[in-house]
């Protein structure tokens, strides 16, 4: 879909709202609900999808008026960007839209309120608009910060330049905003290793682990952005590479894995582009504490937040595998977590052996 078509859809949506206002009918937006209850687990495709539920965002509902205002404001910002032919980041849009509404009421009191406080708020309405008009952010020409880095036997082409990620020495290749504009020229890898943490990525690069293994190593420094997820998905889909995800042994790490694999609740409408259903988990599990004899010194007590998150995982349909149920319940029983660095218990090089052990002996969770 080109930007002209996106603009047409946005304007059409705006016109419907304006019409009902001018005809004195209560203005309401129909938006597919990006909620847990409307996130459907597609067992066959093994990914999350957006369900059929829709919310009605009504201006005259006091609880929703602010969101209504924010949505209309964002609608204008995106429409203007397309008309002007510029390509803002979501940060730009947050910033362009942020200002203070100053309202003097009939009683003479002045109320002031910012259109939004945090970028979370403006990001949420961008996502609402994406699902409401059924057009992706990338199609609107709206990008986000990019966190992804790659190293390994893969050659890509960007704007005509060929880049061989096996020839970066101790440096790495930073992914661009729009991964679909990249051409993946050649891949000579045996698998893709996705690493949660940058520090681990750096070590594996410096220790040339990728070259010994013939692996493409990727990190998104924590919760992955769309571009990194899309790149992993393309390597998996276009080159049939197995994908392994290495995270910390805590509910947050496990959820990060599931985002690569199945998609996220907030962005379930994008899973089809972003999810890598074949991704396998080789991060630390609760039982690995015993399995790899991790010393007590490296085991951390779980926080209330960890426990709450683990209970949520147990309820998600995409965690309904016996392996996950066993591991999460074990975690809830012991309330202990470990980071990847805990493998240093057995020397700093033990990490390599661990990864090989998990992959070669099939000790991953699918």
């Amino acid at each position, binding site marked *: 879909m080109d930007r002209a078509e996106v603009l047409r859809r*946005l*304007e059409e949506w*705006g*016109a419907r*709202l*304006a019409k009902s*206002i*001018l005809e*004195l009918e*209560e*203005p309401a937006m129909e938006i597919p609900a990006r909620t847990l209850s409307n996130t459907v687990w597609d067992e066959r495709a093994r990914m999350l999808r957006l369900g059929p539920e829709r919310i009605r965002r009504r*201006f*005259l509902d*006091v609880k929703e*008026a*602010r969101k*209504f*205002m924010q949505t*209309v*404001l964002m*609608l*204008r910002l995106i*429409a*203007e960007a397309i008309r002007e032919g510029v390509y803002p980041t979501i940060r730009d849009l947050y910033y362009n839209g942020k200002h203070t*509404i100053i*309202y003097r*009421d*009939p*009683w003479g009191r002045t*109320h002031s*309120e910012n*259109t939004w406080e945090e970028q979370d708020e403006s990001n949420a309405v961008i996502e609402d608009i994406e699902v409401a008009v059924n057009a992706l952010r990338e199609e609107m020409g709206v990008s986000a910060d990019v966190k992804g880095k790659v190293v390994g036997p893969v050659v890509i082409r960007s704007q005509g330049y060929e880049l061989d990620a096996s020839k970066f020495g101790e440096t790495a290749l930073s992914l661009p905003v729009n991964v679909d504009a990249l051409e993946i020229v050649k891949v000579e890898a045996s698998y893709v290793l996705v690493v949660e943490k940058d520090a681990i990525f750096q070590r594996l690069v410096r220790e040339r682990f990728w070259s010994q293994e013939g692996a493409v190593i990727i990190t998104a420094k924590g919760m992955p952005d769309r571009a990194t997820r899309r790149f992993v998905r393309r390597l998996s889909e276009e080159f049939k590479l197995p994908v392994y995800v290495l995270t910390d042994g805590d509910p947050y790490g496990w959820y990060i894995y599931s985002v690569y694999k199945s998609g996220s609740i907030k962005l379930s409408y994008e899973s089809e582009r972003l999810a890598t259903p074949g991704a396998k988990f080789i991060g630390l599990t609760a039982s690995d504490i015993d399995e790899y004899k991790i010393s007590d010194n490296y085991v951390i007590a779980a926080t209330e937040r960890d426990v709450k998150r683990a209970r949520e995982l147990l309820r998600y349909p995409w965690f309904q595998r016996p392996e996950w149920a066993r591991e999460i319940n074990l975690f809830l029983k012991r309330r202990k977590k470990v980071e990847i660095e805990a493998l240093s218990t057995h020397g700093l090089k033990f990490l390599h052996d661990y990864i090989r052990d998990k992959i070669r002996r099939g000790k991953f969770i699918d």
Partner: protein
Amino acid sequence: MYHYEALPAAEWFRRNRELAGFHNPARALYQTVRELVENALDATETYGILPTVYVRIGVVDEQRGWVSVYAEDNGIGIPGGEIPNVLGRVFYSSKYRVRQHRGIFGLGLKMIVLYAQSTTNRPVYVRSATLKSDKIYEYAIMIDTNSNSPAVLHRQEYPNKYKWHGTAIKVCIEGNWHAAKRRIEEYLRRTAIVAPYAEIIFRGPDVSLRLGRRTTKMPPPPEEGLPHPKTVDADMLKQMVRENGSATLLELLAGNFDGVGRETARAFAAWAGLAPDARVSELSQDDLVRLAERMRQYEGWRRPRAVSLSPAGAELLELGARAILGAEAVFAVTRKPESYGGHPFIVEAAVAWGGQIPPAERPLLLRYANKIPLLYDEGVDVARKVADEFSWQNYRVRFPAPLAVIVHVCSTKIPYVSAGKEAIADIPEIEREIRLALRDAAKKLRAYLARREREAELVEKYVSLAKYVDEIAHSLAVVTGASRARLAESLHRLIERKIGMTAEELLRRA
């Protein structure tokens, strides 16, 4: 070891003067002003005279802490021959009757005299003339505490050419004007609230107050009444029998009790299984105890009559509270008469909200007894207890709240905790009436607060929608090319339809 002695009543009170509020020079001065002002009001309004009270405090000897207090009224005066006893004999008074007075123990004047002679050894000077009297009598009096009798140091008669009537009293006491000033002022102001028909003029060493008459309408003066049968006790009954030896039961009941005629008396006798024609003198002591009990248990009596009482009235209370407290809203209630121990009483209460009342963790309490403001000893007053235990949360009051409570108890006999007359004792019947009066007043407050809250919610709702109108209209205008002004106008109309009234209507109401 086995030494016993009888103490004269006057000496006993002199030794125990704290009981009557004469604790120290500050409080004694305040108490003296109070007693004199209350006597003055009793001598006027009770007899339908519009009161004019003049009070003056002067410094007699700064070093020794001696002050003079002079009070003059236009009341009915004291008959010349009674003046020595009224001032100089403890337990001698005109106030031992079933009628509402401000004074009740009949002790006040005597305590002032005793206090004056203990501290300055100066007599009290009195000048008085009764209504239409040809003469004005003047006395200087002290009390012989050994014999509880007046010692007259000076006596003179003057012709009353201008038919003046009233009483003027002057005493010299040890008193702390500086420490008592604030209380005395407050006492006079609060008195003026419930007696707007009185003119009170006060001159102190460095303060002058003129609390003018605000109306010439007076509540009807209280009549003398009889005790109500519901709350008689055995001792009281015994005394009546002694005084009515030859009467039958029917005659005793029908002649000596409030609201009891022959019909009622007969119905009671039938209910109680007593012979109506039995001579009461033939009843045994135990019969009398039982009779008192049956009289207390009987549900068929008429309610005690209010004729001997003189409440301020809800209207007056509301006016006063609004004026003095600067409240936003006041709700007052006057309850029907009730009785305890043979004494009818009426409770009035008002709750005042907002305005200049500072928010506090518990209600500000203004207490009155027979129109007397009570300033000390709030902690032991039954009204404080009731106000604190009251379930304010059931009436939409959340503390800290700008809430004041006025409680006025009027009765032929106020059950004070002490002779200092600053707190009402915890009598179950009175406690109950105060609670019910507060409940009635608080219900009105609740309705008021609910209405205000509803309006505040509507305003809140209006604001929380209207503030986004311009932003939405602007954005939609940019996206669609529609008129920004028309969009804004339509959005405003949608909001007004939602809250059920226009902004102008809402503005008028809240």
